[in-house]
């Protein structure tokens, strides 16, 4: 059992039901506690298994403060190895991704295989019989589990089971995976947009309130188009999904997960999207294969949902539209966002290419959507420094949220349920003894 260093901060006093203190976004000591108490204690998204498909494939990850090598070992299993030589501590892998069955530390030449086992010690005769290489393999991340190709990791050996942690969000993950008629996704190695902003990592949340204001310029452009069918933006059609009178909902789940639930709002529009798909051969085949795989009724709703669960899994990943978004906190006021486009397996190339074009039109450092989000996060960080009136309000819609049968709190699309559940999980983990 790892022990937590006691924190001098009273996190209960900083996180109320309807508001949070701005120190949680700006304070360096709180950030250190977040790394230890959240990122090194709970489940983190690591990678998608398709990123390292073959034995010897590897990818570097940043999990909390730790550099980690994800490998595919000789048995076809995924290993997460802490990137630190067990001799003197140098990183044994520097390439961001690639193919290597051995990792050699170039300080003194120790070598490890893709399971992390120490398979080579230079000048081994200088160690006595008490030295057992088995004791000096690369350190494994103690808990690794996956759901439908999404691999999660925890540095906490006693963390709750992944399926219990994800709970009712599993069926939302299915929305993304089952957009493939064979139920398989591909995240291509090295195909990712990496952005950074000078703001706190917790700004990347699920927020159904901001689009009309942050993304006003995009809505203006859309209003001049005849159709936005197939677009990456929430509007798959011209009906506004961010209107509180719409059937869109915001959901907050246990463990801080959250969702902008557009299922009911999109379901009636299946015909429009199917009609557009059926203009191409690949689209016709996609519709037919989806019906074969899922039956007509479920296929129609899956097509209407567009593979977009719009789901945030606390603390570091979101599944939004056609991409997987990973959040990497660097400091209280500096965050990296990695956006991996998701490709559907078992579909024609033009289906994926169209999804890719729609994705990159909205997401990325020069795209229509992401820059305005980053800009607002930076404005927020500059404003939050002024803590004369320190409270940040997250009260919107509290009076109209209700508990759904799946355990989630549900309310209108612009309500701040998502922020509230995120912060309650934050408080729970930060207050842990």
């Amino acid at each position, binding site marked *: 059992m790892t022990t937590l260093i006691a924190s001098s901060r009273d996190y209960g006093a900083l996180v109320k039901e309807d508001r949070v203190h701005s120190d949680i976004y700006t304070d360096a000591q709180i950030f250190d506690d977040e790394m230890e108490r959240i990122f090194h204690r709970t489940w983190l998204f690591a990678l998608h298994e398709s990123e390292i498909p073959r034995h010897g494939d590897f990818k570097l990850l940043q999990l909390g403060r730790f550099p980690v090598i994800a490998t595919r070992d000789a048995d076809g299993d995924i290993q997460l190895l802490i990137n630190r030589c067990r001799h003197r501590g140098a990183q044994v892998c520097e390439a*961001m991704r690639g193919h290597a069955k051995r990792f050699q530390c170039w300080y003194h030449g120790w070598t490890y295989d893709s399971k992390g086992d120490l398979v080579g010690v230079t000048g081994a005769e200088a160690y006595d019989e008490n030295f057992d290489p088995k004791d000096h393999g690369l350190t494994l991340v103690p808990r690794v589990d996956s759901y439908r190709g999404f691999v999660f990791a925890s540095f906490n050996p006693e963390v709750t089971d992944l399926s219990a942690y994800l709970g009712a969000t599993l069926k939302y993950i299915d929305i993304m995976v089952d957009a493939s008629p064979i139920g398989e996704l591909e995240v*291509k190695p*090295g*195909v*990712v*947009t*990496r*952005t*950074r*902003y*000078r703001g706190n990592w917790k700004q990347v949340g699920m927020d159904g309130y901001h689009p009309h204001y*942050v993304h*006003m*310029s*995009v809505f*203006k*452009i859309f209003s001049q188009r005849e159709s936005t069918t197939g677009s990456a933006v929430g509007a798959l059609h011209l009906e506004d999904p961010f209107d509180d009178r719409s059937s869109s909902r915001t959901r907050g789940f246990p463990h801080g997960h959250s969702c902008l639930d557009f299922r009911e709002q999109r379901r009636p529009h299946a015909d429009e999207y199917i009609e557009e798909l059926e203009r191409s051969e690949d689209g016709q085949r996609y519709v037919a294969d989806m019906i074969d795989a899922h039956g007509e009724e479920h296929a129609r709703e899956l097509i209407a949902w567009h593979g977009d669960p719009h789901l945030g899994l606390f603390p570091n990943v979101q599944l939004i539209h056609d991409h997987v978004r990973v959040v990497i906190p660097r400091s209280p006021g500096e965050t*990296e966002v*990695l956006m991996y*486009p998701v*490709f559907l397996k078992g579909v024609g*190339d033009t289906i*994926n*290419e169209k999804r*890719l*074009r729609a*994705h*990159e*039109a909205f997401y*990325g*450092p*020069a*795209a*229509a959507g*992401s*820059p*305005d989000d*980053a*800009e*607002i996060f*930076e*404005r927020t960080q500059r404003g939050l420094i002024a803590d004369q009136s320190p409270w940040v309000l997250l009260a919107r819609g509290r009076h109209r949220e209700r508990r759904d049968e799946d355990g989630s709190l549900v309310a209108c699309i612009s309500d701040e349920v998502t922020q509230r559940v995120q912060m309650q999980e934050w408080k729970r983990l930060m207050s842990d003894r």
Partner: protein
Amino acid sequence: MAKQIVNAPREAVTDGLLDIADQQRLERFLTFEAALMDEHQYDAWMALWEGEDICYWVPCNDDDQDPATGIAIIYDDRRQLEERMMRLKDKTAHAFRPRSRMIRSVNGVVPVRVGDGELEVASSFVLGEIRVGVQNIWLGKCLYRLRDTGEDFRILSKKVMLLNNDEAMPNLTFLV
């Protein structure tokens, strides 16, 4: 990234594919294009593009990435580029307000293929950008397809290969 020049026909880097007057005319054109971008003269910059079949491409991750399977930072056809212009001009596109102040230096202008009134031209740039108190330095190589009108040039396609296209980058809220 310099491979367009490395792989160019030998003549392109010895005598050059253009005579001195045309080379100077080309360099003035690219300097003018850079000035329009630095000064946020979007309509005038847009007027440099010709035809419906244009492509403005800033690849991500890898200069040679196949756009069918790889992601792009920008991959605009004419309609998308026109929408980008609307956003660049829109006061509610917050990331573009206030606008970046920029100075860029264009150099290494080497036509690598010339024929039928069209040119393929490699160049490089250094761009200093300052916005809300933060200065960023951007570097990149460009590969243009241009049409020579005899007087000046028109852009048919432009590929911009940023030095940092596989790194975490801040907002790119201006023209490159």
